[in-house]
């Protein structure tokens, strides 16, 4: 009893309060660092080679159809300053493009990642909340209301600038144009299609009526509920092309998936031969020095063709090896003398 009162203020004797917690105390000793560098270096070189080879094996066919330059393989220069103009890009495949083949369109010098562009949308509208059909968010300005003060749905610059060139691919077989079927299903993210974007509840079984009292975006030729009248599951906000467009790019040069070529005789890819890509040229990019391109590409486990990662791994891996050598030399020759020895 007395003892207790005597040591009333004695601090607890725990490893925590006495700062004696058992601990791992790593140190940058030569035995760890130099082998570590070698291992990292070798692993990185391995990964780099794998990535590089994989990337090399991906085939990409790329064509610029902006029409700024006169080009023998396309006649799009005539459409440069016109809308609703049809032009075609001719190309020849010397080697089969292994399937499945993906067809992309690409834009450059296009600032989808501009902050003002990015915020210029209304998530509530796009998730089918009809209250916001009548009262679009202020972020959508100047595409919030039209000149007659009717609400625009979908509002904002982002939706307004929907890419509206369309493509048809023909294979030229013996002077005959044979259309290559495109598959446009499921080209957008599953989450976008199933969760993020939702059409408003149908009114009297009609999507169009749900959009009553709203007007189409200024640049659009037709309202959102007429994007694909043939397929109700691809219509309205759930239109795959619309979804792809609305997933804005991170960088000013980007490509977006347009269609897949995976049906019928093209399931194995595009066979060799001549092709003609017919383009409905609508989208003006010339005004801001933008470029429009198309890509035919297949993919691998690491995605699309991208040499960067492989090369970066190779460089970093080699650097590690070089550094480990330098360290070894320093360790062996120039080390600070231990005071004991």
């Amino acid at each position, binding site marked *: 009893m007395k003892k207790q009162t005597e040591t009333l203020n*004695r601090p607890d004797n725990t490893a925590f309060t006495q700062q004696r917690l058992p*601990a791992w105390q790593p140190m940058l000793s030569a035995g760890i660092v130099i082998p570590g560098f070698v291992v990292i270096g070798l692993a990185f070189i391995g990964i780099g080679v794998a990535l590089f080879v994989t990337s090399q094996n991906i085939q990409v066919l790329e064509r610029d159809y902006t029409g700024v330059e006169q080009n023998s393989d396309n006649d799009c220069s005539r459409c440069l300053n016109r809308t609703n103009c049809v032009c075609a890009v001719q190309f020849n495949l010397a080697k089969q493009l292994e399937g499945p083949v*993906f067809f992309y369109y690409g834009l450059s010098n296009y600032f989808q990642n501009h902050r003002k562009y990015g915020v210029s949308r209304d998530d509530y509208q796009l998730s089918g909340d009809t209250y916001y059909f009548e009262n679009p968010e202020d972020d959508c300005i100047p595409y919030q209301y039209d000149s007659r003060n009717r609400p625009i749905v979908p509002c904002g610059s982002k939706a307004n600038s929907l890419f509206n060139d369309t493509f048809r691919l023909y294979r030229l077989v013996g002077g005959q144009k044979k259309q290559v079927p495109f598959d446009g299903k499921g080209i957008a993210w599953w*989450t976008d299609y199933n969760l993020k974007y939702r059409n408003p509840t149908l009114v009297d079984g009609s999507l169009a009526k749900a959009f009553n009292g709203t007007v189409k975006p200024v640049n659009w030729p037709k309202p959102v509920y007429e994007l694909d009248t043939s397929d109700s599951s691809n219509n309205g906000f759930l239109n795959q092309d619309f979804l792809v467009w609305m997933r804005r790019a991170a960088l000013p040069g980007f490509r977006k998936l347009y269609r897949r070529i995976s049906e019928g005789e093209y399931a194995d890819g595009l066979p060799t031969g001549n092709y003609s890509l017919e383009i409905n040229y609508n989208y003006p990019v010339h005004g801001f020095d933008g470029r429009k391109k198309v890509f035919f590409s297949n993919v691998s486990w*690491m995605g699309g063709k991208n040499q960067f990662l492989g090369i*970066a791994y190779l460089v970093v891996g080699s650097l590690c090896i070089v550094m480990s050598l330098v360290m070894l030399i320093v360790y062996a020759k120039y080390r600070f003398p231990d005071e004991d020895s």
Partner: protein
Amino acid sequence: MCFFPQVIPSISSLSWFTTVVPLVLVLFVTAAKDAIDDINRHRSDKKVNNRKVQVLINGELRSDKWMDVQVGDIIKLENNQFVTADLLLLSSSEPLNLVYIETAELDGETNLKVKQALTVTGDMGDSVTALAAFNGEVRCEPPNNRLDRFAGTLSFSGQKYSLDNEKILLRGCTLRNTEWCFGLVIFGGQETKLMQNCGKTTFKRTSIDRLMNELVLCIFGFLAIMCAILAIGNYIWELQEGSKFTVFLPREEGVNAAFSSFLTFWSYVIILNTVVPISLYVSVEIIRLGNSFFIEWDRKMYHARTDTPAEARTTTLNEELGQIKYIFSDKTGTLTQNIMTFNKCTINGKSYGDVMDHTGQTLEITADMDSVDFSFNPLADPKFQFHDHSLVEAVKLENPEVHAFFRLLALCHTVMAEEKKEGDLHYQAQSPDEGALVTAARNFGFVFRSRTPETVTIVEMGVQRVYQLLAILDFDNVRKRMSVIVRSPEGKLCLYCKGADTILYERLHQSCKKLMDVTTEHLNEFAGEGLRTLALAYKDLDEAYFTEWKQRHHEASTALEDREERLDKLYEEIEKDLMLLGATAIEDKLQDGVAETIEQLAKADIKIWVLTGDKQETAENIGYSCNMLREEMNEVFIVAANSPESVREELRKARTTMKPGAEEDMYVSKRILGNSPKIVPDEVINGEYGLVINGHSLAYALEASMEVEFLRTACMCKTVICCRVTPLQKAQVVELVKRYKKAVTLAIGDGANDVSMIKAAHIGVGISGQEGMQAVLASDYSFAQFRFLQRLLLVHGRWSYLRMCKFLRYFFYKNFTFTFVHFWYAFFCGFSAQTVYDEWFITLFNLVYTALPVLGMSLFDQDVSDSWSFEFPQLYVPGQLNLYFSKTAFVKCALHSCYCSLVLFFIPYGAMYDTVRYDGKDVADYQSFALLTQTCLVIAVCIQLGLDMSYWTVVTHVFVWGSLTMYFVVTFTMYSNGMYLIFTASFPFIGSARNTLNQPNMWLTILLTSILCVLPVLTHRFLVIQLKPTINDRVRLKVLQAKAAPPPPSKRTRMRRTSTRRSGYAFSHAQGYGDLVTSRRYLHRPVKPRSGGFTPTGRSLGFSPTGRSAGYSPTERNQNPKQEVEATSLQMYRTRDMAF
């Protein structure tokens, strides 16, 4: 600050919550911490304020709180109570209205002092009615800080009485040996001289704090520059690109390129404000708080005997503990225990006190060793301990020299005895040294029992004998000895003398030559152990000679001219041809482990200055015994001059001795002429020197014209001891060093006299667990023992500093890296103030994802364990040199961040450019990019943290891995379906985590990025360790090699020095009580007539040796107490007459 522009829609680049949430949290935590601090401070103040004291109110005594005491109140103090306020002493229980007080709290002196009330007030006694009716008027000087002076007058019943310091009890003193006294409050609270001496309470901030503030200002500038660059970029972009891109992104009305760039500037201020770390301050506070708790929790800084744990009273100074360069220490109660023990002696050439084992080896004396049994002596003091049995056997064998030795100790002193019950003796010694000697004699069978002015009664081996006290030849600093002349009951006349051996040896009879040599040897041994020695000698006197001498003495003491000289001559004459008996060795008990602590601190390159109010000899002696002054030192300079010129001369001489030929007075005078004080650089000298300076010289040395001179000299010395300094001078010395040295100072003390320096120093440490509270209350840290200081500095301080620096470096790195990525992205998004990361990530990055790991590091990190820290005190040096965090380190952090942010932006950029998922779908979208970059960032900063952390405890593991897990959990949750369905607009990132993080190339990117971020750091650190290892690295390597956790605590052998230095007459009082003892006024208890046949002879009534009180010690408080003594002598006779 950034919240304001954020509510303006046109520039709001981020949602309001990104800034508000952290800000609110920061403010909340800061407020909470400050509140706790305040409450604690109030609590300790209350403790003092609520002490009870008896106050005379409306004619009766009531117990009241200290804080309610007001000027004009009459209060009653009882024995051993603290004096509440500055009081005018009115009356006391003792005859002649004397009171005894101890002023150790005030000036560090341990001897008792006497104060005396005016007779006119003293007559009131303890009559409450008389006191209540007392209506005098006191006029006095305004409150001031002079402890040794008071001037005022008391007007009472038409008479005026002058008041001086003799009638004033100062707050901070303790009443001793006085049953009660009454006092009139003259100054209370802040006006007391004690508080006036306390110096200003300044808000203390650490140098890191100041540096941090500077850096934050720099960061603000840097932020402005970055934003300006981006705004210009935006202007150019708007002109070249934006104006054309209006097809798809129309401009708002009235916005042109210039205005847009203006808006962009502010938008980027919002985004990049994370470089200005809001949470830095609160994190720093938390870390300091945590480290303060570790100090309080430390069992090795807990003193079991007094049940006192260490206390961190300020929680904002921890890291400064790791940077101390100068320690200013009090002596009494801090270095020493203020206990004297009789440790050894040599009698007739035989040394006693050492304990030998059977092989003849001297054993270390430890507490559990059995001590000598004194049960044969019923009057023995049970607290007295002695370990050498041979001495008590010698006493029992009636060895005549041993008996004479202790008889001398029992007779030759000025101690007062108090015997409340039969056998319950209490000695009241003027100095603890004397007390120790008399107590020793008491235990060895020569019990000093009582005294009258003419007699001394002792019990010699159970037989009571009364010696007639014929004369006391009192001691002082010049004589360094004291003698008594007594007549034994057998009628033999004898002179007993004790004093400094050097003095005594000159007066010995030639026959003692042989004994002298042996004794000298012993004395050297004792002195080598730091003991205070006194030589003892006696001389049988011839009756006729003495009578004649007595006559001359009487003449001399009544002479009007040259009294001092004449008395001196007489004393010299009789104190010669003495027979040496032996010598005593008294230990001024140091606190435990003081010498080791000082040694350790010295190894850590910390300079220790002792500032004490005590005598020069005592201070010097302690300097030797705790190893601050050493025999091996090239020279110990003693500056004790009385004029500015000679002080300057002595200082200069000392300096030229230390550093010959380097007389750069130009440099000094130039410095003095310059307005702003500049830093005096450290000067390198060869050899070790010590400096002892007394208060009087110090007063001159601290004058503006000489302070630099003093500082330079003092700083060259390894040890500096300032004695006889006032509390204010202590503070001045500290201030001086603070002003001219770019160094962190620490002051440690226990008494009220140390408060000023505790407040003045960067860090103040109070010794707690003792009676006084003043020092502790003013201090920043407090603990019970001086030796804990080494743990506070070498372990806690060093760790705190290390942790704080690591924290700051990492924190700046983390925030810069985080922010700079936005900067790079600006070049690719049209300078549109688009953030790279998700807004939620920005909100949570500092608060949730990275807060705990860095806190874990800065709370638990240790480079090496505490025992290794003690093993290598040199580890402390980098802190003193500010090596771990400085502006350079900050710039390095920024460059490192710059590199990392480039990697963090461009590797994902390259990896994402034009790529797609393995199912051909999009992945180069903004949300995926944001997710990728932020994941890379979190992992990269985590790895960097892992590199910085050298001590992975369970807690840190949990923090690090927990935070990483937390990141993924929170990310997946926020990007989940449910969150989007509930808060549609707040979580637009739905699905990006699932769609992105299932891509192998994303993970490969993350791997590459994080590794690439740390590779250069790893390489750099490794190379530095190999090529230019810091002391830290080397010790850590050693620990690694030793593998074993703690090194066995090295057995420190007690340092024995062979010293020729003799501590001499190092009594802790300057002047004897002789006159008081022989005068009757000291004796307040009537002497009971003891054994029959003893009749007090009235012979020595007229013999009252006047003290040699004046003129030998310039700083002695009682500059001239003679008048008072004489005055009271007169009164004494009067009272006595009345009594008879």
